[in-house]
């Protein structure tokens, strides 16, 4: 099914099953511990354990690997290094190789896997592998490298000769002429995903065919990249990933656990399971790159923005990419004169890559502080300032309208519900005992991405509806919203739908990433169900145009038949995909929201505490308000982490992230998070897809960090532009207590 024109009325609009706050269909399995994650697949015989040896230097060359002691260790079956792995390729989505040798590209890059009978033996033997390196000088200091880093990106595209700076109007002149100006620098640090399930895989070979049970968000991408890395035909690779214990972008790609399990299994001639140890994950896998950003805003005294510029610099390994932190600034606010640009430095730190809301998460952390600062300079309320500069068209291409844009309503609705009018605009005025109290606001913005997604639907003779797609559920609720979608389409309850996910033997879906999963994957299921409905109608002898599927009955005019009758003569199977025409070019598809946060800061110790949080979101049709709300509160929680505590500390001498475990890289705990409120505006975006849905999982993270920062400023009068906003950065600005 190709989606080319705005959607009219369709069966999804009935919202009898979809659009309802349904409990997760996988809930009983997850809460009773029976949902099988990658490392937990049962029924495999003779599984051995692999343990990865990581590089102890950040950059250099392996001069010698001595595996003799490890090979002689109890229980050891095989050891694989680059020297005996055969010729390996590299996945399209990998920047650094997953097995180093002879070159080492980053700290903790895998250099060997030791396979043994037991986990304990493999782990002990791994430490006996002796590797000698010739270390070479690396580049680890982002600020230093950015001084000479080239511009990258821009709208010209990769092979364009257009300068990699996007401009509209004459920014410099307009900025110079603006009566009110802001020119400020912001910094966001490197972040690690810290999903609770470590990267893990079990590999099993049958002849030249490989099956990998692995924890992965994107089955089709990763199947391709495994074939590329292991130099094997695509059809010989099967990936199975029914449950994923969190990903946040960290499991978009094939990582060392999968490749080393496959190589280890080949060498051991047995299935091998590999999980990345927690202290190894941070430097071995990918992370969200740090950014240095500069934002300039110029406005008239009435608050109209006349000039807006956003520049961002980040770093990555050679051939890596930038953190696209300027993305939202192209679209979020009006302004006739605009400029965005990015610089990319080469760093020899571990690979930078996507983490929840790449680009917008760090970009909004900066832009939305800048908006708060500018509002104060203008003497305007920050909600009012944002509303003043709303735009209903793409500011760079004014002929393009937003398909839907209710940013203003999000801000207004949020302000009312949060009691924004009670905020004292002057900082450091409100006190509750020993706590300085402040409120902050930020807009939320994240683009919607349309991408092809396929599914298969079966109607069994016993009336069971089964959906098969390689879509993954990484906590997003895919199982549930797919069951709801099929239920709505076929007139059965969600409970009557069996959803099978995460298997590369199934039709390829959009996968889970970029908050595109829910809308696209369900649209693919919708397409398959439309096909199945036609088959059902045909079997039952109905004219398919006006058939209604409801409560297990298929009705056309005054004729009605049980759905089960359609499959009485044999199972019906339909497969289709959703693909997209040019609507997404004609219209700008984005999601919007507003975050409101109240923060308390201890006047003595500077300790900060979030007291209240509210998000109002406008993101198209909400497929399951319960699961969607969870996505948003989860994103808000991660946003609190990035605002207040999360930072990978870089050791610029040795070239690694120092705090590489969950004790030293602090993420929010229960005690950090108060009750969170989420409101979804009633929307259905007919230009997005037949589901009229967009995503929320990343929207909830975009802007919330800045709302925290702005609230902390309002509480204390201390403006911190360098995340995370830990107390050491504002202690000296708190009221004197001694």
């Amino acid at each position: 099914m190709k989606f080319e024109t705005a959607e009219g009325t369709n069966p999804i609009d009935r919202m009898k099953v979809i659009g309802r706050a349904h409990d997760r269909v996988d809930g009983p399995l997850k809460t009773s511990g029976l949902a099988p994650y990658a490392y937990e697949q049962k029924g495999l015989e003779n599984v051995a354990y692999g343990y990865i040896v990581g590089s102890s230097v950040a950059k250099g060359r392996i001069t010698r690997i001595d595996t003799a002691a490890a090979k002689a260790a109890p229980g050891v079956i095989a050891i694989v290094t680059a020297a005996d792995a055969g010729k390996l390729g590299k996945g399209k989505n990998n920047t650094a190789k997953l097995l180093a040798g002879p070159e080492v590209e980053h700290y903790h890059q895998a250099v060997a896997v030791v396979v043994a009978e037991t986990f304990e033996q493999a782990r002990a033997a791994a430490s006996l592998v002796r590797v000698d390196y010739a270390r070479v000088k690396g580049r680890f200091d982002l600020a230093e490298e950015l001084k000479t880093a080239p511009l990258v990106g821009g709208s010209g595209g990769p092979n364009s000769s257009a300068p990699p700076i996007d401009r509209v109007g004459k920014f410099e002149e307009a900025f110079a002429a603006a009566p009110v100006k802001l020119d400020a620098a912001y910094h966001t640090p490197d972040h690690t995903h810290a999903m609770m399930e470590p990267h893990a895989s079990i590999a099993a070979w049958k002849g030249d065919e490989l099956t990998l049970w692995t924890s992965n968000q994107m089955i089709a991408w990763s199947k391709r990249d495994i074939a590329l890395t292991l130099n094997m035909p695509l059809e010989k690779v099967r990936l199975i990933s029914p449950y994923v214990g969190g990903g946040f972008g960290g499991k978009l790609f094939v990582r060392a656990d999968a490749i080393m399990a496959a190589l280890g299994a080949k060498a051991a001639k047995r299935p091998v399971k590999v999980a990345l140890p927690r202290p190894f994950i941070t430097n071995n896998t990918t992370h969200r790159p740090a950014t240095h950003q500069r934002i300039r805003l110029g406005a008239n005294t009435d608050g109209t923005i006349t000039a807006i510029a956003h520049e961002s610099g980040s770093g990555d390994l050679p051939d890596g990419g930038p953190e696209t932190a300027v993305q939202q600034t192209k679209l979020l606010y009006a302004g006739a004169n605009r400029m965005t640009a990015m610089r990319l430095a080469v760093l020899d730190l571990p690979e930078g890559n996507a983490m929840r809301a790449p680009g917008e998460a760090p970009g909004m952390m900066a832009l939305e502080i800048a908006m708060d600062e500018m509002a104060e300079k203008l003497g305007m309320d920050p909600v009012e300032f944002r509303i003043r500069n709303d735009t209903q068209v793409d500011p760079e291409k004014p002929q393009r309208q937003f398909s839907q844009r209710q940013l203003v309503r999000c801000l207004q609705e949020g302000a009312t519900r949060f009691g924004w009018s009670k905020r004292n605009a002057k900082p450091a005025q409100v006190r509750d005992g020993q706590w300085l109290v402040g409120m902050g606001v930020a807009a939320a913005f994240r683009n919607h991405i349309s991408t092809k997604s396929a599914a298969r639907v079966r109607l069994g003779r016993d009336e069971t509806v089964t959906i098969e797609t390689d879509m993954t559920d990484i906590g997003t609720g895919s199982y549930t919203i797919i069951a709801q979608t099929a239920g709505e389409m076929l007139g059965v309850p969600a409970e009557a739908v069996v959803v099978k996910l995460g298997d590369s033997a199934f039709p390829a879906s959009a996968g889970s990433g970029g908050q595109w999963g829910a809308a696209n994957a369900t649209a693919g299921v919708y397409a398959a169900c439309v096909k199945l409905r036609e088959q059902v109608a045909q079997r039952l002898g109905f004219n398919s145009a006006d058939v209604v599927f409801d409560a297990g009955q298929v009705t056309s005019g005054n004729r009605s038949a049980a759905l089960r009758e359609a499959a009485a003569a044999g199972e019906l199977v339909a497969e289709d995909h959703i693909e997209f025409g040019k609507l997404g070019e004609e219209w700008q598809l984005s999601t919007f929201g507003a975050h409101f946060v109240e923060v308390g800061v201890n006047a003595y110790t500077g300790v900060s505490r979030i007291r209240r949080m509210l998000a109002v979101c406008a993101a198209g049709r909400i497929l399951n308000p319960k699961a969607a709300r969870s996505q948003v509160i989860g994103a808000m929680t991660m946003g609190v982490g990035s605002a207040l505590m999360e930072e990978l500390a870089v050791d610029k001498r040795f070239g690694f992230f120092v705090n590489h475990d969950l004790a030293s890289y602090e993420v929010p705990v229960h005690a950090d998070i108060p009750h969170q409120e989420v409101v979804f505006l009633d929307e259905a975006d007919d230009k997005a897809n037949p589901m009229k849905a967009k995503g929320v999982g990343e929207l909830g993270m975009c802007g919330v960090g800045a709302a925290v920062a702005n609230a902390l400023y309002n509480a204390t009068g201390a403006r911190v532009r360098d995340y995370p906003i830990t107390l050491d950065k504002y202690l000296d600005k708190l009221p004197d207590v001694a």
Partner: protein
Amino acid sequence: MKAFTYERASDPAAAARIVAAKPGAKFIAGGTNLLDLMKIEVETPVHLVDVQDLDLQRIENTDGGGLRIGALVSNTQLAADERVRRDYGVLTRATVAGASGQLRNKASTAGNLLQRTRCPYFYDTNMPCNKRKPGTGCGAIGGYSRQLAVIGGSDKCIATFPGDMPVALRVLDAVVETINGQGQRRSIPIADFHRLWGDRPEQDTVLKPGELITHVVLPRPLGGKHFYEKVRDRASYAFALVSVAAVIQPDGTGRVAFGGVAPKPWRVPEAEALLPRGAAAVTARAFQGATPTSDNAFKLPLATRALVSVIAQAKA
């Protein structure tokens, strides 16, 4: 984790004897810190003597009006004891400010005193660390040192003692009782128990090989108001940036010790005597000669502010 043999001891002196006699042998009680470090081979014992069956699990009244806490009393049991909650509030407060509910159920009183530093260079065996591997250098000096010591370190090591409960024990002038393989007992004032690093950062405490902690004795209650103000980046389940254990009397005098700032719970009697003159006077004296890094210099004003908070609460 290196291979090790394991046995369960039934008698304190016998346990001490085994560990003293066998190079590379260690005691294990709760295991919450030792196993953590064994997994990454920072600790590599060849033999573990499990002391969980020893009769060191009770909190008894002493003739001197204090309490004698068995070495194996769990953090939870200690914090919840009616006598401790009533008479030694600072100890309950410090104990429940540490770790998590799960860890406190397992962690023992003795083990808490023996916690090793959380310095990230100590934890990464690829990095130089004089404490982990004498003579290799200190990765933290000139590296990432936000959590590390501002005072009491040396040019070999700037690690901090990470615990909370011992900071309260320091304020209470607790005494650590031990036994050795010959059955000899000794009492070590808490002030002397933890070492400053000097030239031998590998040695955390004054315990001799095979010397087993049997009890921690609390002198009679001090009265006054009890506080444990712990400042950290997140609200719970995190090590202190700075903590303040204090017992403040109605007349404004009292005792105070700081955590998260030094190789040991940091208490300076001459500084404490300045309590009636306010927090700034106390910390100026307590941190005289401090050598913070640019990463952790904030701990000095933070310690003052945390103590101001405690004094304000005491007056309230």
